[in-house]
């Protein structure tokens, strides 16, 4: 328990260093764009594949589950949209990206720590925490909401494709369901969750890597810790945000 509070304290102290005034903004802008590519654009294909299949599976499951003459077919499209917007595209995609991006960040920064690259930056007088972590946080917090929107779109298209290809329902009914009782605030809710989860994944993973000690085994452990800790924190904040922003 004491270790947990110690970690939380050190995490917030690290965030204090991360958000202190950067040395030169120009360098940071360049690094942000680099991170947008490394952490954002490189996650598009994984997000697309998973979202398309989940959208299709959700539509298929809904079609099987809601097979009743008393339930209109357009409810399948409605349910698919709600699942994608409210939970899947923000939370589940975040959990998947916690594995991909979280382990990437923790191992990158952890390796820099054990090979003394972070010490080298500190000796130069660079605020290493800010220089290494801030661009990653800014890049993901900006890009994850876009990735969330993309995931919603691809998931819905996946559902449409399965309806069209298998004939389990009329594509027209599916589209009607997509527009049924649409609450625009649910998109805002998904985007906010995307940003918050991006911050959680990036900052926790960076923290795990930044304080890695020892050898390559420790980098592996830091990477695992990053994925587990950020996944658990995402679930906790999912609950909190759902309660606060009830759609």
């Amino acid at each position, binding site marked *: 328990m004491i270790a947990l509070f110690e970690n939380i304290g050190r995490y917030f102290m690290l965030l204090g260093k991360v958000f202190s005034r950067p040395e*030169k903004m120009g360098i940071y802008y360049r690094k942000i764009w680099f991170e947008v590519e490394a952490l954002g654009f490189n996650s598009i294909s994984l997000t697309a594949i998973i979202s398309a299949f989940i959208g299709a599976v959700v539509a298929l499951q809904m079609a099987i589950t809601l097979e009743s003459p008393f339930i209109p077919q357009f409810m399948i499209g409605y349910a698919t949209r709600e699942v994608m917007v409210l939970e899947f595209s923000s939370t589940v995609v975040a959990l998947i990206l916690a594995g991909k991006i979280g382990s990437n960040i923790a191992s990158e920064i952890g390796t820099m720590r054990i*090979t003394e*690259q972070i*010490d*080298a930056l500190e000796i*130069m007088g660079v605020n290493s925490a800010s220089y290494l972590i801030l661009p990653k946080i800014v890049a993901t917090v900006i890009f994850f909401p876009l990735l969330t929107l993309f995931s919603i779109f691809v998931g819905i298209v996946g559902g449409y494709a399965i309806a069209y290809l298998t004939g389990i329902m009329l594509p027209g009914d599916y589209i009607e369901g997509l527009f049924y009782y649409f609450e625009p605030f649910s998109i805002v809710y998904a985007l906010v969750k995307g940003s918050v989860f991006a911050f959680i994944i990036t900052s926790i993973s960076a923290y795990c890597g930044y304080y890695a000690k020892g050898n390559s085994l420790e980098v592996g452990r830091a990477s695992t810790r990053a994925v587990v800790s950020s996944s658990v924190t995402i679930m906790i904040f999912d609950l909190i945000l759902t309660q606060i922003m009830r759609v």
Partner: protein
Amino acid sequence: MIRADHISKTFDGRTVLDDISVEFDTGKTNLIIGRSGSGKTVLLKSLVGLHDVDKGNIFFDDVCYTKLNFAERKNIRKDIGMIFQGGALLDSSTVRENVRLPLDLFTEMTEGEKRDRVNFCLERVRLNGADHLYPSELSGGMVKRVAIARAIVLNPRYLFCDEPNSGLDPQTSVVIDNLIHDITKEFNITTIINTHDMNSVMEIGEKIVYIHEGHKWWEGSKDNILEADNRELNEFVFASAMAKRAKSVSR
């Protein structure tokens, strides 16, 4: 000049440095030597500010570094260059980007001035032509030379080297030693090298401090280390078969 004044450092209750006082001279190649685990790396990292000492003070010329706050230390760090054991080059940056980074962060130079300065430093370590390579594409000796170029790019007043020859063959070690020594003289830098390479000691050791079990055990130069009347130092200096044979032949 860099001066340590009665510094001590403990880790988890274990004393690693015990009341060490030593002065390192400007324009000289100062060496810290000792067996593995003797505390020499901790001493070097304490001097450079990577470890905070528990007791005592460290002075950079007349400035007491240990009493400075974070922002004031930052100013002194711009005068410090450091060469790490493994080079510590940024893996995701090319040789040119690695050397240029301090200029980007701490100077208002124009692009042309930065290019000229990087070219000068790379030329100084005889690495012109390798500027587009990544650290993973370099040999051990080249990594060390890039690290030297990066360390001197801001014209430092103090240069710290943590085992600059580790992992290098004897010939490349001599090249690196001479390069550091020449740069020290050329720019009148206070250089402190942490090593257990006796070749370096005999080649460039203008001032040598021997650390044994966290204590300063002996202080001198390459001219008097072979005649030193100190059992632990002699065991260290004449540990290798070659050194023992050389000693018996000279007798």
